[in-house]
């Protein structure tokens, strides 16, 4: 156990030096790309905001089912099958047909090449399930159908979230999917997420619709409140143009009224429709509706054929800027809810770094002094190994550009405390061996060999705990699992290669000395 070939010594030295160099790249700037890596600081250390958003898919499902009833009715009408009593209840569509038509309806739904019920061969499932309850048919989304629907609204939502966050211009935001209905937004360096939160909290569904007095409007009507919450107006459900028709939106100052407004321009289809509506609707009020609330309802005075217009509504410059941003980035497919928020101010982050570093330094000093007092020369070897171990650990974290969190620093300190364990096990074993063995070399060799199984078992059990923490833990706790887990490998390396190398050099030079340890 004590013999080292020249090649192995070279390997150990190179390996250690390499990782120490990588670790040092946190302090200096290297031109080389390979060395120019840094440990990322977690949000709890650098300050920033962590937001977990959940997509509320209920309205999307409602809307899809609503559209489906129309599709079903029209589809079977063409086939001369009359659909009766079609209605939506608890996310199910119910309808009746006469008995003779039952089989043909089932066939249409269960056909793998069905016109409106897509089949997913991979999951052997249709988008919709149909069930003959005896009284009537029940149609709802299959499990796969729901999953597809959720992932597609998640895909759309994450795109819109990304656009909105990018428009605000925070540095290096991190936007990730979580499950099939959640989005994680990490915003480093942002200590007041209020604006982003309010931007993400809005669906930004914009529609232009006429205000009507006719309760029996062909498209149906609804009563909507104004933004101020006081007034109300009856608005037709017929949509003239919607947010999808917008090409651009910008906040502007209206030179005539001295008001802040949002000016917009429309795409070709939108411009055409807007022109037609404004030409037929002169004198009528056109309501500009955002997320079910009327921003303003100006009277149409003239045909607007240019495809551009403006929205006024008592905006401040900030609210106009935000509205323009929302309109530019598009509407979310479904409302988002912030279900978890963690924000740390930058000065608290700095305080945590300082406290963590002080604790690390003090813990390190205490352990080093203790080991030196207890084992003298071998304590010194352990201490040097401990320092190298710490540097290699930092090197590995840097190489993988791992994220260091406050619990992560605690993990490093804990590694320092526990790293000596392996050395202690070995030294204590050697002491025992020396009781019956006069040959120093044999005693040291025996000590290393016989303590190995205990050391491996001990480290593997800690590693198991770290692995579970890594996969089950969230955020900062994950950082703890990483440093603890990586720490185990660097500890084993430093104990079995570095410390053993030093020990073997010392022992072979003092072969005949008594009471070596």
């Amino acid at each position, binding site marked *: 156990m004590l013999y080292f070939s020249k090649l192995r010594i070279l390997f150990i030295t190179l390996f250690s030096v390499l990782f120490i160099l990588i670790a040092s790249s946190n302090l200096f700037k290297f031109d080389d790309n390979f060395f120019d890596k840094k440990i990322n600081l977690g949000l709890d250390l650098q300050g920033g905001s962590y937001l977990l958003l959940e997509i509320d898919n209920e309205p999307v499902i409602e809307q899809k089912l609503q559209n489906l009833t129309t599709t079903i009715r029209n589809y079977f009408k063409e086939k001369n099958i009359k659909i009766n009593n079609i209605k939506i209840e608890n996310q199910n569509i119910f309808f009746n047909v006469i008995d003779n038509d039952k089989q043909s309806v089932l066939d249409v739904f269960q056909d793998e090449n069905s016109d409106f019920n897509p089949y997913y061969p991979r999951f052997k499932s249709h988008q919709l399930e149909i069930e003959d309850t005896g009284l009537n048919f029940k149609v709802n989304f299959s499990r796969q159908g729901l999953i597809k629907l959720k992932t597609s609204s998640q895909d759309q939502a994450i795109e819109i979230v990304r656009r909105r966050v990018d428009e605000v211009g925070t540095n290096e935001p991190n936007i990730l999917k979580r499950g099939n209905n959640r989005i994680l937004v990490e915003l480093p360096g942002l200590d007041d997420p209020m604006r982003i939160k309010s931007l993400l909290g809005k669906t930004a569904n914009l529609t232009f619709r006429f205000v009507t007095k006719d309760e029996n409007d062909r498209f149906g009507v609804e009563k909507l409140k104004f933004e101020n919450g006081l007034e109300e107006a009856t608005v037709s459900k017929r949509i003239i143009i919607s947010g999808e028709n917008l090409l651009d939106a910008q906040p502007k100052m209206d030179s005539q009224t001295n008001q802040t407004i949002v000016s917009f321009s429309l795409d070709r289809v939108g411009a055409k429709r807007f022109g037609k509506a404004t030409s037929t609707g002169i004198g009528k009020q056109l309501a500009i509706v955002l997320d079910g609330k009327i921003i303003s309802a100006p009277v149409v005075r003239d045909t607007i054929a240019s495809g551009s217009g403006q929205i006024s509504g008592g905006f401040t410059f900030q609210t106009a800027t935000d509205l323009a941003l929302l309109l530019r980035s598009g509407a979310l497919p479904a409302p988002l809810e912030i279900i978890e928020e*963690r924000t740390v101010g930058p*000065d608290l982050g700095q305080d*945590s770094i300082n406290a963590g570093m002080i*604790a690390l330094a003090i*813990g390190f000093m205490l*352990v080093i002094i203790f080991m030196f007092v207890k084992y003298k020369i071998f304590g010194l070897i352990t201490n040097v190994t401990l320092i190298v171990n710490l540097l290699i650990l930092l090197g590995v974290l840097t190489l993988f550009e791992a994220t260091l969190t406050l619990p992560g620093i*605690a993990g490093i300190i804990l590694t320092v405390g526990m790293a000596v364990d392996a050395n202690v096990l070995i030294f204590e074993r050697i002491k025992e061996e020396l009781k019956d063995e006069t040959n120093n070399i044999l005693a040291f060799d025996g000590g290393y060999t016989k303590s190995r199984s205990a050391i491996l*078992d001990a480290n593997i059990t800690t590693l198991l705990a770290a692995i579970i*923490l890594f996969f089950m833990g969230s955020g900062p706790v994950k950082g703890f699992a990483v440093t603890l887990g990586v720490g185990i490998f660097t500890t084993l390396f430093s104990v079995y290669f570095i410390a053993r190398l030093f020990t073997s050099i010392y022992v072979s030079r003092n072969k005949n000395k008594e009471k070596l340890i």
Partner: protein
Amino acid sequence: MIAFNKYYNHFNLLSSVLIVVSLLLLIFKGLNFGIDFKGGTLIELRASDSKINVSSLRDRFNQMNLGDVSVKKFGNDTDFLVKFENKDNKKNIIEEIKANLDKSFGNNYDFRRVENVGPKVSAELLKSGVIAISLSLALMLIYIWIRFEWQFSLGAILALFHDVIVTLGVFSLFSLEINLSIIAAVLTIVGYSMNDTVVIFDRVRENLRKYSDIKIFELTNISINETLSRTIITSATTLLALLAIYFFGGEILKGFSLAMILGVVFGTYSSIYIANTVLVRLRVSQKTVLREDDQNKLN
């Protein structure tokens, strides 16, 4: 040599009492779950005006109709921790609070940390925490089963249960907060306690092979003594590191390091007085390990 085995029965009794008391505490008093597991809102606030203190803050917050509000000092005199349930999960609660505090305190305060955990997320976090701890106990059990005989496995697992339950019992007794980092601490305790037990068990097994004429009662004592200096030194260095975190690592790590300190103390104790006594009570002998060796040879 210290006669640890003289007190096997005494300490077994003590541990049984500790476990029963801890379980009673956990059942009847329960744990003080933080917002991670209960849901709610937490604000860490730093004041730059001496007018702002626990009672003036409590007054202000109580006027806001937030339900049960707890206001505590956090570390030094200018830092406060405010927690409330946020039952209705109001959206712009933080803005409202800020506007409200501005009225009374002007600009003399600063929100250093804001955490808001919805009820859905907290339920999930609790579930995954419980799964993580159970999973790690199960994995340890399997690992020890593979490496040792079943008697050893049982001893190690009982020791682990003891450490986890008694540590949680202390948290319950003093109403210390259970949050995500405490789960991390408990898992590390599981690892550490196992580590400690394995080192002694390793020696017990070795001695079982070596001596055929020594009874397990004596043998465990010999093994404990042979590994004692290692046990003391490793516990000491780990505790030194943990004490450094506890005293200098800042308020946020206090609960975590306290749980770890308790865990190391209980873990060291349980390796000696629970894990080993299980071997004694199950009358483990040389046959137990030799039979296993024979089987390995046959395979």
